[in-house]
């Protein structure tokens, strides 16, 4: 569904030193610099996949999404989405994709969302029957009912995002590019958005490429992740493999019936947290079994769970490794 082969996107930006003098000089002589937003990225995504696109700010995620949706010309390389060259912005292509940007909105600010829906119905030339069916479905999945009549500017951020999603999916696109769709939302609204994206993907077999700063989003939605840093793809594969590769250690969460000495915990592994009734100890994958056995026999436990390290930390380590390399 999506094929990207050695994609490169460079921007030419105008650079100048700070200060009024430099500003004046730059009027006559401009120094340009190439910013390499995306460098030699290749991947391929099959129809119906849900893929998470991770990377720090400025890594090239949004640039890649914009190239894929036809908003930016690739500097080099070949990109094909649903059999089209995105940069040609053919109608057949645009009718099959959608781009949701958590930071930007397309709802008409002064009008109720229903007006934006009607406008998009005309633009996408959606037959009345299909429009009614899609509307009913979206209203049910996202609980839009009470929101449709209120002017967009009076909706809360979460309510607005639900309507943004509905507007973006009105034409039943086969490819969804979601750029930070949960940014700024509270935990329960994030969960609603995630649940909805998954439901849409399963119901229509749509392909989803999602960027997010919330690792929860990616963990809950995307069996496959791609990690990009400084414009280069540094990982492409399953999420659990990524965690194992970057942070092969596990965490034991111990609940204690009475306080224990710190050295009793240090005998198991490295202590991350130590409080009266709770402790977190990190151990390597190989040492996990003996450590669990030892904890069970030597400590006053009420509960013991084993977890992967938090995804946020995995990513931090991954990018730190990338920088050092």
């Amino acid at each position, binding site marked *: 569904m999506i094929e990207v082969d050695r994609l490169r996107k460079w*921007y030419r930006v105008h650079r100048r030193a700070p200060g009024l003098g430099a500003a004046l000089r730059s009027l006559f002589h401009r120094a340009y610099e190439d910013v390499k937003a995306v460098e030699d990225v290749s991947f391929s995504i099959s129809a119906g996949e849900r893929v998470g696109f991770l990377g720090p700010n400025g890594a090239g995620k949004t*640039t890649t999404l914009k190239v894929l949706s036809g908003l930016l010309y690739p500097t080099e390389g070949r990109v094909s989405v649903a059999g089209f060259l995105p940069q040609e912005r053919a109608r057949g292509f645009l009718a099959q994709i959608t781009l949701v940007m958590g930071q930007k909105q397309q709802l008409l600010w002064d009008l109720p969302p229903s007006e934006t829906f009607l406008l998009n119905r005309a633009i996408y030339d959606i037959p009345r029957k299909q429009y009614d069916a899609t509307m009913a479905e979206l209203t049910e999945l996202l609980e839009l009912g009470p929101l449709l009549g209120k002017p967009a500017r009076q909706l809360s951020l979460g309510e607005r995002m639900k309507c943004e999603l509905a507007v973006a999916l009105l034409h039943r696109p086969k490819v969804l590019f979601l750029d930070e769709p949960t940014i700024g939302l509270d935990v329960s609204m994030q969960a609603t958005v995630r649940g909805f994206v998954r439901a849409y993907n399963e119901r229509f077999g749509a392909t989803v490429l999602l960027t997010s700063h919330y690792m929860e989003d990616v963990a809950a939605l995307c069996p496959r992740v791609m990690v990009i840093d400084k414009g280069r793809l540094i990982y492409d594969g399953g999420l659990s493999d990524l965690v194992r590769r970057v942070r092969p250690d596990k965490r034991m969460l111990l609940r204690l019936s009475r306080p224990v000495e710190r050295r009793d915990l240090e005998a198991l592994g490295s202590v991350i947290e130590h409080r009266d009734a709770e402790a977190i100890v990190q151990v390597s994958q190989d040492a996990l079994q003996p450590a669990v056995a030892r904890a069970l026999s030597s400590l006053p436990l009420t509960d013991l769970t084993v977890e992967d390290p938090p995804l946020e930390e995995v990513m931090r380590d991954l990018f730190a490794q990338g920088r050092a390399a």
Partner: protein
Amino acid sequence: MRALRVVRAQLRASIATALQYRFEFAVEGALALLWMGVTLVPLIVVFGTRESVAGWTFPEMLVVLGWFVALKGILEGTLSPSLLQVIEHVRKGTLDFVLLKPADAQLLVSLSKIEPWRMIDVAGAAIILVVAFQHIGHPPAFADLLLAALLLCSAVLVLYSIAILVVSIAFVAVRVDNLLYLFQSVFDVARWPSSVFRGALAIIFTFVLPLALMTTYPSLALLGKLNLRTAVAAVAGTLLFAAVARGIWIVSIRRYTSASS
């Protein structure tokens, strides 16, 4: 057909937006009336001391002014607000949403915001024209009316093309609000027939900024004084200008790289 449906939906949303603000509607409507009155003042002052200016009598000059008021209403009621909206889109990066739609982007931005109360100008212009022809003593001939209507369409198309050119510049330069205000000030010259100006100004206002086309030619047509050759040249020139503006728009869209975020 589909383009028409898009335009209709766009218009519907624009009007609905305008109707959200009742107070603005009343105030802006009153202001439009006031400005129309002010527009008449210079004409009355000039013709208080003399019978004609550059061969134009008072009622003939009223005809020019009528066209001017009508076009000003159309310009400031539809094109200017939509244009400012596009510039806002460019600045905020939301033009992306327009470019992602499977419809012509120019079509989508052209009527994105309108101010329906400016139709008061058009009504006022009709009244000015009626008064002018009462002074003249006979109504315009039917054929002349048709020609004037054709030239009005051509004048609106020129204005629209200028607007599209300004927006195309916005893709490169981002801040072009001032250009819009400059254009509005220059457009003010169109309240006078082009033959009032001499030398370089006459050439500039006919060929560089086709103000003659906007008010002088439709007025001459209505007065039955426009020769057919000028009319044909005017319409042909308009179509050429519109085609060039469209071409520049397409090139600018291609060059546009959205504000990075």
